[in-house]
């Protein structure tokens, strides 16, 4: 077999691809100036050094991770950018040029309102569809998988998504409940039988909606690709190759819901554990596939329900961590760098998450004590986060800078640190964010 590269070599290969950006057509991307090329490559090397911890970076990377902030900053509404992709690009470009962060996270976050409309998306409310034009989209939590459906999910996760879950969260795909069981198309006897559903008018209408949504998604992707290429040409790398999730959050966020998964921990713990195991290889594949396709090793992993206060330590170790660790290790084995975003507090989990190989992951914290985090993960993983939302939103510029200084003093020593926020922000003070970015570029230099 040809594929005998070690995880280190695979990671190196992905970093090399990230260092050599291509345009949407796959050709080498021209930089707009030698300075832009230098900035692009210096940033990636800086992030690589911070993550691998083999070499001291030139300075602390400063990587704010905005939610809808660029949209409000540009004086637009979330509704405008979800329907007008030119405005979307303009807003995110203005953000990058005004703040000059080391990296950007693309303009993907708002998504395409039109695609959601065509598909009649029910899982979220978005501007004009359940929330006002000035507000951001939000999830409608519910039990989109019922308590008695664990076996169906465990036996055939993909089939469960196509025939049960997607028809529930997309009104236009409801007829997919009628789709055939594909493993039945085994030999000539099964063929004509199993194609009957595709002739039914409701199923055909669902496919028509899919084609329309696909065409719209392509338009949206065109705008995003052009934005990424322009930013790379100017010297700003896109931060993430894609995303994946912890199996516990996958089930708890959008399948069973918070209450559903938490009562299942008592009512049917074995089924829950089995389901998370069944989802583990799938969510490894999701992250690895995205990193390879994008040519970027960093994969975003937002963590939700394993935070301090959500579960006891014992519950975290039994239900949350084992399959999360498997997903992380599955990514690491393929050279991918899980960029784990531990929302909420993670103080009580620091001991457990030390059980990871050195220099293969990055952990961004939200409300965690950064001194404790650094101490626990020193020599194991790059840490970051903790840019406080209250200071960004309502504090003074001096408060913001003082906090940034404290973060660098506490965590920056010896590398392995990225300045970033631990929760997405939408409306913060321009001058506070700008002050932090500028301050880190000056104060965060390693000498």
């Amino acid at each position, binding site marked *: 077999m040809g594929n005998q590269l070690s995880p280190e070599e695979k990671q190196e290969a992905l970093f090399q691809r990230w260092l050599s950006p291509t345009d949407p057509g796959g050709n080498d991307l021209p930089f707009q100036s030698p300075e832009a090329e230098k900035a692009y490559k210096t940033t990636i090397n800086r992030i690589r050094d911070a993550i691998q911890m083999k070499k001291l970076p030139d300075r602390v990377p400063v990587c704010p991770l905005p939610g809808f902030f660029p949209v409000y900053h540009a004086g637009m509404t979330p509704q405008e950018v979800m329907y007008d992709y030119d405005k979307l690009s303009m807003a995110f470009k203005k953000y990058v040029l005004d703040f000059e962060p080391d990296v950007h996270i693309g303009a993907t976050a708002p998504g395409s309102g039109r695609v959601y409309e065509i598909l009649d998306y029910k899982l979220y409310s978005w501007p004009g569809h359940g929330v006002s034009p000035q507000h951001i989209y939000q999830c409608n939590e519910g039990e989109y998988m019922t308590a008695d459906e664990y076996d169906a999910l465990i036996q055939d996760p993909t089939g469960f998504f196509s025939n049960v879950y997607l028809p529930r969260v997309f009104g236009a795909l409801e007829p997919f409940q009628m789709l055939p069981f594909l493993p039945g198309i085994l030999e000539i006897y099964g063929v004509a039988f199993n194609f009957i559903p595709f002739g039914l008018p409701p199923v055909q209408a669902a496919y028509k909606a899919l084609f329309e949504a696909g065409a719209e998604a392509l338009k949206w992707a065109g705008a995003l690709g052009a934005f990424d290429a322009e930013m790379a040409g100017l010297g700003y790398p896109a931060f993430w190759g894609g995303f994946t999730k912890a199996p516990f959050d996958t089930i708890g966020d959008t399948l069973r819901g918070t209450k559903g998964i938490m009562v299942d921990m*008592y009512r049917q713990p074995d089924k829950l554990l089995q389901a998370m195991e069944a989802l583990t290889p799938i969510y490894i594949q999701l992250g690895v596939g995205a990193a390879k396709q994008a040519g970027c090793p960093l994969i975003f992993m937002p963590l939700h329900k394993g935070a301090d206060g959500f579960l006891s330590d014992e519950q975290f170790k039994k239900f949350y961590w084992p399959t999360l660790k498997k997903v992380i290790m599955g990514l690491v084995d393929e050279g991918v760098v899980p960029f784990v975003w531990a929302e909420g507090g993670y103080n009580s989990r620091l001991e457990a998450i030390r059980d990871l190989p050195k220099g293969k992951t990055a952990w961004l914290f939200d409300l965690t004590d950064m001194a404790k985090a650094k101490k626990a993960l020193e020599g194991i993983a790059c840490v970051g986060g903790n840019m406080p939302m209250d200071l960004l939103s309502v504090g003074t510029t001096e408060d913001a800078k003082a906090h940034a200084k404290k973060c660098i003093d506490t965590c920056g020593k010896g590398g392995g640190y990225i300045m970033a926020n631990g929760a997405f922000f939408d409306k913060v003070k321009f001058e506070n964010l700008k002050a932090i970015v500028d301050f880190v570029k000056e104060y965060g230099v390693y000498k």
Partner: protein
Amino acid sequence: MSEKLVNAIADMREEEALKLVWTLVANGEAEPMAILDAAREAMTIVGKRYEEGIYFLPELMLAGEMLIQVADILKPELAKLPEVKRHGKVLIGTVQGDIHDIGKNIVTFMLDVNGFEVLDLGVDVSPQKFMEAIQDFQPQVIGLSGFLTLAFDGMKETIEAIETAGLRDGVKIMIGGGQVNDEICKYAGADAYGRDAMAGVSLAQKWVGAQ
């Protein structure tokens, strides 16, 4: 018998607890009010264990589910009894622009089992709706919930509107959810913030002078 029920609920033995309630009702061994009191006593233990860091969200959620089921079993009997006396009134809702409700629902539930009359306005509640409800419901305490950082402004606007309308005196306002802390409390103009559901209950108890 009631001690057994209290322990079954407090120790998260759902099946046993529900069987006990069915048996007590079917055999006429306990008054419905006595069963409900036992369930409330168990909830107090659950709340205490949550405060002490022994229990976490799964236990609060499961306890809530158990209490709903117990109340359902007792409903036909309880309908015949007079309304219990409440400590005070709390008006609660997630502020405009935010539709998150899990945290708010837990707070509502914990206030209810701790003897408050709670009016929950739901999510994405405009300042106008809050003010109308203040006039109709006459709460002593108002709870503003929000998960998004955008909710900071929603809280501030709601409290400003309440002040402008001359409704601020005589009510205490608490905020909670997501990234809320002391700074945000000052920014929004609230009286206090609560980090979790039991903190919200304690604030309400302190303000209305209830035990």
